[in-house]
């Protein structure tokens, strides 16, 4: 049975972002209307039954997250929509906000109703400037049409949606760092506990949800939890957006069910490896997850499927790597990113990322010594599990994963004193010399 997209069905049609289009083609705001006729608890129950899991990376059940939000408190509650999509290889939320913004706005409103919040903040990535303009205009239209604001549909439910633009920090995508940034502070993670569900934004109970997650909420309310659950394998229900990039013929965002295998995604959806070269490795969930090898292509691209294969679905940013990619260079490239984006709050991540990058640079320059491999391994392990947030683990993963799967390449760099790939392939590799 062919999969019928639900999130991105209309994104290539003209004016798909407008309210009119949304009302005409996507049963616009019917989900919200329907939600307001039942109790907030019913919504949470529906989302729990649907098995919706957070699309931001961790795959935590959304209904459960909402249930944890402290109800017995005089404080305000908040929904924070995490639109700080910064994970390398991930660009799905961007498409949703740009082409289908009302789905997100409706999702925000329903989610607010579910947890008893009156305000949702969309924390949008600083670079998404034009997306912010679209969102702002469409939020305004939603207000005018009475889908946001006071007493929506005469139900007595008030909901405001605000946009806050980030200043360009990857770490602001971490939920507590996002909250700090939203409060006007440096985007640095907080100690947990307390979790945001207890003390989040302005120390009030808060749920932080990804854009794609919130976009799924109106669909669940409208079509039912069972419809949603049946779209994918058990516990991996619903539509899923995959961002496929790297050495493929047709990079882009693809919507599929989580029954789909990695092979189908790469070869059927994305048209296969660029130039029909051999596939060397895949990063299945954005730059922070371990690599998978070509022999693992037939696993389902679901949260559980990818985890079983030894990696994580993460943000579903598939980075496809063909045989021209030097793995030491890959690790160095990624560490350049992590070293630059580490917030610097905790010691292992602040000092470790920079150190790892310098060692990788030395290896890539051909000046590595054999003890550098142990050093890389040792430093990485001193970061993993010792940091305040998950950033440290994410930063060490590219090193540990490439060393585990492609140690011979590292050894060759040391032995030969240079990258062992053909010179023609190496020419494309910048060394970030003198960066910072």
């Amino acid at each position, binding site marked *: 049975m062919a999969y019928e997209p639900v999130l991105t069905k209309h994104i290539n049609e003209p004016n798909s972002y407008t309210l009119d289009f949304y009302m005409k083609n996507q049963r616009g705001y019917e989900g919200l209307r329907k939600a307001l006729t039942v109790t907030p608890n019913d919504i949470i129950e529906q989302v729990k039954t649907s098995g919706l899991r957070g699309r931001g990376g961790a795959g935590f059940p959304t209904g459960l997250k909402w249930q944890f939000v402290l109800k017995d408190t005089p404080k305000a509650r908040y929904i924070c929509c995490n639109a700080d999509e910064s994970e390398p290889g991930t660009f799905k939320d961007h498409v949703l906000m740009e082409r289908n913004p009302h789905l997100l706005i409706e999702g925000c409103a329903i989610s607010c109703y579910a947890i008893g919040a009156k305000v949702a903040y969309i924390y949008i990535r600083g670079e998404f400037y034009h997306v912010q303009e679209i969102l702002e205009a469409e939020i305004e239209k939603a207000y005018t049409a009475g889908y946001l604001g006071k007493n929506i549909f005469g139900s007595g439910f008030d909901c405001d949606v605000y946009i806050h633009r980030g200043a360009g920090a990857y770490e602001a995508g971490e939920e507590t760092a996002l909250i700090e940034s939203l409060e006007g502070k*440096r985007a640095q993670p907080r*100690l947990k506990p307390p979790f945001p569900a207890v003390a989040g934004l302005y120390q009030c109970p808060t749920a932080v949800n990804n854009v794609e997650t919130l976009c799924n909420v109106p669909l669940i309310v409208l079509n039912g939890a069972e419809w949603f659950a049946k779209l994918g394998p058990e516990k991996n229900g619903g539509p899923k957006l995959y961002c496929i990039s790297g050495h493929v013929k047709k990079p882009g965002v693809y919507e599929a069910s989580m029954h789909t295998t990695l092979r189908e995604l790469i070869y059927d959806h994305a048209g296969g490896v660029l130039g029909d070269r051999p596939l060397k490795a895949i990063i299945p969930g954005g730059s922070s997850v371990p690599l998978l090898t070509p022999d693992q292509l037939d696993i389902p691209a679901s949260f559980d499927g990818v985890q079983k294969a030894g990696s994580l679905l993460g943000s579903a940013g598939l980075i496809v790597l063909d045989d021209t990619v030097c793995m030491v260079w890959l690790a160095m490239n990624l560490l350049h990113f992590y070293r630059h984006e*580490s917030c*610097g709050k905790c*010691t292992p991540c*602040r000092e470790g990322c*920079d150190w790892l990058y310098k060692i990788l640079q030395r290896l890539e320059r051909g000046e590595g010594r054999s003890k550098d491999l142990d050093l890389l391994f040792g430093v990485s392990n001193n970061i993993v*599990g*010792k940091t305040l947030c998950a950033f440290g683990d994410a930063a060490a993963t590219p090193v540990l994963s490439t060393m585990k799967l492609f140690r011979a390449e590292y050894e060759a760099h040391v032995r030969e004193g240079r990258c062992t790939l053909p010179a023609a392939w190496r020419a494309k590799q910048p060394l970030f010399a003198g960066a910072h």
Partner: protein
Amino acid sequence: METVTLTIDGLQVTVEKGQSVLQAAIEAGISVPYYCYHPGIGVDGSCRVCVVKIEKMPKLQTSCSMACTDGMVVSTRDPEVVEARAGVFEFLLVNHPLDCPVCDKGGECPLQDFSYTFGPADSRMDFPRRVFDGEGVRADVDFGPTLMLNRNRCILCTRCVRFMREVDGDAQINIVDRGYGSEIATFSEEGVHSLMSGNLMDVCPVGAITTRDYRFKSRPWDNPNVVDTTCTLCSKGCSTSAWLKAKPEWAKGSQLIRITPRFNPDVNSYWMCDIGRFNYHWIEGDARLRRPMQRRGTALEASTWHEVEPRLRDAVQAAGSPDPASVRFLVSAHASTEELFVLKQLVEGLRGAGGLTSIAVAWTRTAKNQPAGTRFTIPATDAPNVNGARDLGYRVGAGNEGLPDLEDLRTAIEGGRVKALYVLDPGPEGSIGDVSWIVAARQSGTLPLLVVQGVLMTDLCAGADFVLPGAAFVEKDAIYTNDQGRVQAASRAIAPPGEAREDWQILVNVAAALGLSLAYSSSDDIRRALATAMPGSAYAQAGQITFTRPVPAKSWLQSSNPSERWKWDFMFQDLPPVKGHNVQTEDMGREGAYIPLRAVE
């Protein structure tokens, strides 16, 4: 008190509910390192060196942020912990310049101490270190009027950031840039402008923030003795420690090398203000009075006590014999309770029960410019003992809440009704307020006789007929009553200079010269008499108040922060031997004995 019981390294520990595992471990004497944690400021959890293993928890946890729960089983010595901790210590030193030999913190540095104990033997780092503002001492940059900053040494624990935000109330410090480029900074590099700035050196666990006052002045092992005393520069009365240098000649003759706050939960917590911290140089300054002086013609000439006392008696008797009420007294509220008690007995002996009316008490008030949200307010009253004077029956008007009333005295002096004025001013300069009108009255002859018992060669002293050199607050054991009504002991750290004497003794001798026998041979005697004279008051126990003597200053931490006190026992046992020989403190070892005067020049 609700308590919880947990096990740390096999040791059963019972602590108050809500305490962190780190606090529990410290209290139980178990050594867990920490940098971002400080008992006086909020938990941050960022340095990661206090990691411990807690049963049933999958990952290592930072003990500073983990609240104790009943039955919790904690290990600080599990191999996993030891390895993880060593890893973090390696990271901390990856970019630290290790310039300990020229660093003011070297020798009392938590980064040194904990690294030796918990860090790996060597570093695997072989890249050039991160450098911010230059290398070596060039890296020291201005950090406001009182501080210097060396960013290379900084380990970004953010204690300074949080101190300014939470305690000072004005978040002047923050981190700029991020990741490996993070650095401590102030807006537009303006530096820290705060009356609390000195505390930043205390909270800094490395040599990144140092005070200009103490910079390059001494090494910790050259300050072998410390005295727990009390600051007397305002009515708050912060508990402090006065540090004494072993070789005063290495610091231009000064023994007093720095003053640091001492934890007192009821008064000053872990902090003190810059006024108390930095305003001590006058005590051993060139303006100190070292010998009694008397006027001969237009000049003041140095004299001796046995010469001055009879002449003073003659002068006072000559001036006061027609009308005893024409002898008046002006006393600074910097005078200790003992001195006020003796002075009261002196005037009552001379003039009967109403004698106190002849004494005016003086002090100054200065508005301290502090942020609205500060957690440490510095009182406006600059004197330590207005309440002590009030308790003894002196007229102090609105007390700490107001200004002294000297109008009566001034009118009397300017009206020529005062024939002799005796001023007691134990410093610092200016603390008795504006007395230029007294100087003017003496110069014009309206006031025929001026006696000043003081510590500094002020304009007032310069105009006096007799100058009696007294002792500054760190030179005598004395009690002061702070603005909370708390009777606090300020211990003697050093001896008065030259022939200067403790003020109570000068007063007793003056009384004797005037024919009054006040049988006190030590300040202890006075406190016992005070206790007897004021039963049922806050002074009833004054006779039992204990004063400390200079003790080996094992570490700055030990005397400034009791929750870190255990560290000494673990790590500082190999303190280098004290250089030189401190005559002063040797004398002080004699319990209760009066310390013979001895020139320290």
